């Protein structure tokens, strides 16, 4: 049995139910009946104002009632047949769209230049110069490294910026800020507030193998980074290898031990200096090139480590940015910060 309050009839819920049952008319009737009460034959200023207030109040409540009705409809619509039909229709249309897209693209591929043949439009004077003169103009033995860091360096600058901006976006989303008293400002679910909730502490096998593997991985990463212009490798692959070594260490030993050599401040300043160096170095190079001035950076002998002008420092800068970004992604997803 429902217990009703004594003023049930005036409460908004009752009004709403009445309005639902009776429709618009009931509310309007209430307005008209309540204003036709006053005894004065000619409405004076006070009664006019009272009338306006009443109309205003009811309109205000009508707005609230409309909202509640829409909410009620919305909750019920999710479980009705209309929704299921619409869901299936959407699925069928999306599938049709996918099939039509595949059909048109296959039709196109049938007319594209033949795979693995030397007689394609892509084999033109552009790559002739990259391959034939790449070594003497850029000093890099790895032609792709010479291309992305010298001929088309602006694209690589854009790409490092993409990584940087993605790290900032994930920082906006996932970083748990501490307020002035050191308490977290955002809500966390139970599993996340303790970052080793699902894992045992100090797992012997993991720690043992991490102690052996991490130095090897980091050394390999540094090797790939420094030899980007001499062989396969470069900034992006070297940075990815470095970050995987760091993440392995973090996984095995936890945030406290990793925090001894990699804190948030270090992340910020390393990214800042690397990207800043890249921007300034390439700005110098672009400015000199565009105005026809000679840039004065020596190309060195091909095959030596210290050769190919700016390519090795840029590789290192890019590698550091990549390593920091991957590490900060991992740390943010796992713990909401460093």
């Amino acid at each position, binding site marked *: 049995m429902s217990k009703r309050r004594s003023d049930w009839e005036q409460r908004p819920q009752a009004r709403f139910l009445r309005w639902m049952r009776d429709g618009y008319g009931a509310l309007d009737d209430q307005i008209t009946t309540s204003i036709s009460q006053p005894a004065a034959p000619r409405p004076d200023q006070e009664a006019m104002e009272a009338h306006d207030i009443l109309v205003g109040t009811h309109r205000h409540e009508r707005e609230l009632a409309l909202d*509640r009705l829409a*909410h009620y409809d919305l909750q019920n619509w999710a479980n009705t047949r209309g929704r299921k039909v619409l869901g299936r229709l959407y699925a069928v249309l999306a599938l049709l769209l996918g099939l039509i897209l595949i059909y048109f693209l296959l039709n196109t591929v049938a007319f594209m230049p033949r795979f693995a043949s030397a007689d394609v439009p892509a084999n033109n004077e552009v790559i002739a110069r990259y391959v034939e003169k790449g070594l003497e103009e850029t000093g890099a033995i790895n*032609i792709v490294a010479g*291309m992305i860091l010298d001929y088309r360096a602006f*694209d690589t600058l854009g*790409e490092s910026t993409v990584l940087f901006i993605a790290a900032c976006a994930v920082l906006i989303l996932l970083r748990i800020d501490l307020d002035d008293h050191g308490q977290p400002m955002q809500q966390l679910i139970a599993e996340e507030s303790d970052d080793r909730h699902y894992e045992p502490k100090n797992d012997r096998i993991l720690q043992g193998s991490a102690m052996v593997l991490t130095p090897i991985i980091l050394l390999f990463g540094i090797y790939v980074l420094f030899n980007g212009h001499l062989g396969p490798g470069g900034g992006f692959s070297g940075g990815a290898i470095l970050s995987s070594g760091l993440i392995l260490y973090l996984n095995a030993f936890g945030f406290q031990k990793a925090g001894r050599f990699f804190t948030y401040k270090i992340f910020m300043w390393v990214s800042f200096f690397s990207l800043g160096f890249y921007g300034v170095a390439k700005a110098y190079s672009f400015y000199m090139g565009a105005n026809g001035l000679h840039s004065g950076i020596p190309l060195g002998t091909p095959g030596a480590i210290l050769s190919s002008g700016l390519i090795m420092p840029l590789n290192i800068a890019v590698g550091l940015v990549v390593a920091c970004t991957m590490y900060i992604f991992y740390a943010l997803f796992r713990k909401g910060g460093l």
Partner: protein
Amino acid sequence: MWQALYDNLEQTVAVILFGIGFTILLLQRNLIRKIIGLNIMSTATYLFLASMGYIQGRKAPIVTDGVTDLAAYINPIPAGLVLTGIVVSVSFTGIMLALTVRLYRRYRTLDIDQIALLAKGEDMA
């Protein structure tokens, strides 16, 4: 046409995978599956790009033994483009996953339509 499609087999497969990934990104309601669809679509594009660089019988574009002849190496440009594309794809995946984590924390479901409904309900309450 079938012969042409078979000759360009890599591109055919890439395009089919692109269509599948596109449809998954559009069609699935679960956010994690959408992200997987995004990754399939991106990887298919890189396969398409990379397959444009290969020339039969030639080596990777790293100057060995001082040979800088054009006929010795494959096309280096698609390799550079794919490099850029992979970085972009990683960034997008990271952001989408971060969004998924935030939405899950708040609404405890991964279904985008259910989440939209709950958000609308919050607005009206």
